[in-house]
Structure formats: C-alpha cells, structure tokens
C-alpha cells in the first residue's frame, strides 16, 4: 500500500517531454491527467460520452439483472461477448495511441499508469463480485438503471456511496 503524502495526493510526473507534476488523489483508477485545468463547460464533453455510453448500456441490456444472472450461470454468451470485445477494442486503441504517440485534444501526451498489485484487488474484488451478482450492477449501470426509471436503485447507489465511505474510514486497518 502506498503511504499517504501530507496532502493525501500522489504526485506523478508525466512523460519526459513534459516534466510536469500532476496532483492525484491516492489510488484513483480514473485520475485526471490533463495539465490544463477544465471548467464546467469543457467538462460537458464527458457528459456527452457518458450519454452515448448509457444508451449502449440500456440497448445492449447490460444493465439488466437477468443478463448478469445468465452470465454467472453460464447460460448466455452475451456478457462475455460484450466484455471480451470491449477489452480487445481497448487493447488495440491503447496500442495505436502508444505506437503513433497520439496527442490529446489539448496536444498533451497521453499518460498511462502502472497498476501495483495489492491484496485489496483480491479481497475487494471478491466482495464486489458478491454485490455485482446481487444488484445486477457495477457502478456504471447503477446510474443507467436509475435513469431507466428503476427508482429503487437510488437506494443501491446511496448504499454504494456509504460502502465507499466506510472503506475510506477503515482503509488504514484493512489488509492491502
């Protein structure tokens, strides 16, 4: 487990061409690596990506509790197909970005992080798997399920936020 810096932020130096330090919340899987600061309106483009993503979630029935049951009962290939194709598409995309050194819209070099193994990957992973099968949702589909009108899922979301908070509270005491 990485130790907390004074401000609880990881300081990560970006590439050699851009020896600039970006502040990160510790152990964040989806950090903001952009050097230029973004305002409210420029963040809206991520909402647009989210909208398209949410539509795919609903239209491919990934948010369906039944599809998750089928997956864990090995009665359908659907979810395996979705995740498998997504990973292959992702691997090819990342390879292209690295190979051709593609820049972001702002002209910055795309930053990748090395993930370090800790036992939370295993213990937390198993706990999340249990919850995934119960709720039929990972965090992404939770938002899409609520948007689809399953208002009871608001409780699931609030409970998930509570779970995240409790992890933060107990973090120092948990094995990593």
């Amino acid at each position: 487990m990485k130790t907390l810096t004074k401000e609880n932020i990881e300081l990560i130096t970006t590439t050699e061409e851009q020896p600039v330090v970006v502040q990160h919340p510790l152990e964040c899987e989806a950090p903001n690596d952009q050097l230029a600061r973004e305002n409210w309106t420029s963040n809206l483009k991520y909402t647009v990506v989210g909208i398209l993503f949410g539509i795919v979630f609903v239209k491919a029935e990934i948010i369906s509790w039944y599809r998750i049951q089928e997956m864990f009962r090995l009665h359908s290939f659907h979810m395996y197909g979705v995740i498998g194709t997504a990973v292959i598409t992702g691997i090819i995309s990342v390879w292209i970005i690295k190979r051709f050194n593609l820049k972001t819209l702002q002209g910055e070099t795309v930053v990748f992080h090395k993930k370090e193994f800790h036992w939370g990957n295993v213990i937390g992973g198993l706990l999340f798997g249990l919850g995934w099968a119960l709720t039929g949702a990972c965090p992404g589909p939770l938002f899409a399920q609520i948007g689809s009108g399953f208002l009871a899922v608001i409780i699931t979301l609030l409970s998930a936020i509570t779970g995240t908070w409790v992890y933060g509270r107990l973090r120092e005491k948990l094995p990593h």
Partner: protein
Amino acid sequence: MIETIRQPWPWYVAGVLIGLTVPALLLLGNKHFGISSSLRHICAACFPARIPFFQYDWRREAWNLFFAGGIFIGGFMATQFLSNPEPIQVAEQTVNDLRALNIETDHQLMPASIFSTEHLFSLKGLVFLVVGGFLVGFGTRYAGGCTSGHSIMGLSALQWPSLVATCCFMAGGFIMVHLIFPWLMKLI
C-alpha cells in the same frame, strides 16, 4: 433505421462501442476510463469527515461526475425514446433456475419482485439493494476499481493486477449465484 436501433443491440456492437470509450476519454482530455471513482468523489465532496482518503481536490476530478451524470441521462433517453417494445429474452435455463428460487422472470430489464419501489422496506429490499449496494461500493474501492476501471481500462493497458481483480469479480459473482443465493432465497 430507428426500428433497428430499437432492437436489443448485439454483443459485438456494444463491446466495440464500450471499448471505444477508452480512447475517447484518453484523447478528449487524458482521462482514464473508470466509474467507481465517482462514488469516492461524491464522498470527498459531500462528507469528507477529515478522512485522509477523501482529502483531495475533487473539483479537479469532477469530469468523472459529469461522465456519470451522462450515463444517467443516456439511460433515461434510451428508455424513453429507443426502448424495445418486445419483452426481454432470458435464457430458458436461467428462467427455470430463477423460478426454482421463487423469482418469476418478467418482461422488464429488472425483476419487479425485487427492484420495484414497493419492496424497498422489505427484507428482500434490504438484502438486494442495501447489502448489495454496500458490497459494490466497498468492494470496488477496496479493489481499486470496478468493471470499467479494471476489466476494461486496466486490461486494455495490459495491467496484470487488473486481471487478478477481474478474475476475483467473476469468482465473487459465481460464489454468490451458486453458493449463497440458494441459501439466501430460502431465508427471504
């Protein structure tokens, strides 16, 4: 055209589109795909409670909340304007297995016998929504990511800890469905 869109989308279409989220976010603004961190940012913004894990500049990470908000809107739009008029097709074996557990398969995306608001304050609601949700939030943060952060983004960047996490996600799901579910459904 619109009729085709209304049909359930096949796995390869969905998979490619989800996979393309990875380069889209990277190239739009050096953002790593991952949704569970939105839950952490909500904690950091609303109830940091002087916990070190939540002491950071969440406004700098706000893009993730905008993204999650988009998923909510997308879910709404797809259901309102593009929904499939046909009932959802569920594998027959799954229907039979669920029937044995007293869960009737209905025609929606989620079984109303568990996820309708009238079951909110029942024991079922407590287990599926409250316990399930807690495990999702606690587990993903402990694991350092969810299906998007580890299984899609992490695997795309060939990070082996993400492969370990993904295998554990799946193992947890199998344990729940095959070992805990039969026992749990007798209780509630």
